[in-house]
């Protein structure tokens, strides 16, 4: 019996632009068990959002899933028709986005928008039932005076309240999986703390799984069970939250952790990662991080590294993990 909720196998997503094929995601695989929180970390352009959008079919022209499979709850989502996928999206997988203002419809009340999700899930239900459930949802996400709030429009809500309303909409379908794409990036730290507590709380109550996409390592340290680090459309490292933070293997992960200012010690100088983010139009033939890597070997420039798996499941895609790496020639730091 397979107890994985979500299984992604060698997923490839490309965008066909006038300038050429942009390989946003080039061959990633991961899986998620029910009730777990998976953190996906990466900078802009690393493919972290695109990989999750594929799960509910949000990839639009000129983007296309060019390879691989996505299995949700035993069903292959990537082969579904639009109609079939509609049943999965919203009912079983819900999504919340970074900017709650652009994701709520400004001409409908919050009540309308929650009702839409409820009708989508339960079909024809009575107005009283809708109202009852909407009020329940709004109180669940910590909005005061839910009856009054239902008839208000998004512009009458503040940023934090809008994010709560969006979470309420997502929860309307009682999803098994919630994809949260930078849910707190647009919010202030105090509001961010509120929303993260809320997500943890709801996760405990409902037992849903969460895919949390973020660039903030602090947030995943707090929320996630497992972490995936992405760079240039590929997974460079994955493991449990403890093994990633305690024993980072990949030079990119190490660099990211090192470049953060430590709150507890007033450090001297920050150690940045050199160079600039990569251009997805011109991916190198070897490791995508090689041009910025401090420990770059000759083989890194020409050949893609395999994923090396350790006993505890910690997987790293880096030639340094290969036994032959010790004898190999190190290229002098080639970053700018």
């Amino acid at each position: 019996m397979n107890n994985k909720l979500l299984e992604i196998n060698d997923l490839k997503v490309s965008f066909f632009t006038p300038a050429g094929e942009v390989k946003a995601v080039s061959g990633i695989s991961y899986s998620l068990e029910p009730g777990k929180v998976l953190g996906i970390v990466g900078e802009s352009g690393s493919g972290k959002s695109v990989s999750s959008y594929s799960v509910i079919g949000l990839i639009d022209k000129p983007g296309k899933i060019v390879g691989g499979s996505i299995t949700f709850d035993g069903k292959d989502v990537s082969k579904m028709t639009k109609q079939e996928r509609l049943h999965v999206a919203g009912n079983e997988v819900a999504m919340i986005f970074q900017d709650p203002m652009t994701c709520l419809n400004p001409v409908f009340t919050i009540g309308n928008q929650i009702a839409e999700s409820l009708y989508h899930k339960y079909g024809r239900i009575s107005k009283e039932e809708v109202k009852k459930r909407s009020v329940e949802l709004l109180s669940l996400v910590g909005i005061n005076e839910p009856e009054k709030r239902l008839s208000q429009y998004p512009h009458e809500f503040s940023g934090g309240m809008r994010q709560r309303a969006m979470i309420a909409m997502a929860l309307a379908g009682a999803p098994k999986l919630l994809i949260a794409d930078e849910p707190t990036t647009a919010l202030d730290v105090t509001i961010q703390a509120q929303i993260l507590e809320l997500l943890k709380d709801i996760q405990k109550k409902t037992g849903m799984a969460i895919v949390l996409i973020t660039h903030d390592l602090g947030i995943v340290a707090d929320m996630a069970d497992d972490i995936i680090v992405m760079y240039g459309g590929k997974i460079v490292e994955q493991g449990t939250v403890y093994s990633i933070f305690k024993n980072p293997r990949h030079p990119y992960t190490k660099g990211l952790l090192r470049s953060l200012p430590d709150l507890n010690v007033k450090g001297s100088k920050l150690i940045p990662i050199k160079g600039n983010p990569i251009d997805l139009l011109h991916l190198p033939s070897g490791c995508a991080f090689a041009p910025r890597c401090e420990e770059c070997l000759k083989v890194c420039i020409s050949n893609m590294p395999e994923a090396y798996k350790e006993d505890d499941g910690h997987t790293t895609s880096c030639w340094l993990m290969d036994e032959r790496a010790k004898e190999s020639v190190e290229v002098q730091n080639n970053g700018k």
Partner: protein
Amino acid sequence: MENKSTLVEIRNLKQYFTIKNSVGKKGYVKAVDNVTFDIYKGETLGLVGESGSGKTTLGRSMLRIYNPTSGTVKIDGIDITKFQGKKLLPYRKKMQYIFQDPYASLDPRMTVSDIVGEALDIHGLAGSKSDRADKIRELLTLVGLNTEHASRYPHEFSGGQRQRIGIARAIAVQPDFIVCDEPVSALDVSIRAQIINTLEEMQDRLNLTYLFISHDLGVVRHTCDRVGVMYLGHIVELVESEELYKNPLHPYTKALLTAIPEPNPDTAKKRNRIILKGEIPSPVNPPSGCKFRTRCPYAKDICSQKVPELTDCGNGHYVSCHFAGKI
């Protein structure tokens, strides 16, 4: 820091914006309300707070990008609050601004050498054409760009490189004082440390004084000597950064510090967070008394009646709270 000489002196600075509601009734947004503090030569003063707390407005009023409603801003002992036009120009040269968004703050139709050179032209700092070109090349190298970048346009650069152009533009006029308004917030995590290092390097080389506006308390702790915490137009706590993180006295600062996500799973999952209720109130209609009282877990009757003064609790630790040191 021994021998503190004051570079910028701010006294009772107020910046109100007039607004009208739908029936034409006038009101004020008190973006900065009665702020008093000094910035010492060579230091980096951090300014933190949530959006809407007035940190950016304060930075802009100080540089006379806005005309302050009342109060004074002195630089090197000279009150510049009322200066206009030609009289203000020499002081503009002393004070520069680095903006948050490196995409919006560079004119897309100007080349890098025009952007940096414009500052030189306005203040008449370049003698001849070749002198101007030399100076621009020198500035670009200083901030870590290549000299051949001079003829390119902003869209050809990544976010981090654009922020470097912004820095080159600011230091072109050899200022004493720079307001850095969230200089790394719009950048990718892996690029942030680069820009912070460049800013620190410039400070060492050119003896700069910074006002560093940020909502990222981790970055502030790293870069700043002293930190001011703002809430709804007021400075609620002002102290050396080491002390602020070790011994915060204002309940708002305490909450802010526990709200930062820590990149360490051990401490992150165990610590006790103070979760503030609600959100920052509207500056059009701020609460009476202490502005923080509506969200403060310790608020008592006195907090709604009396505005707490920013007072020294010893060792230059300024706090405005009726119960400072008791909670």
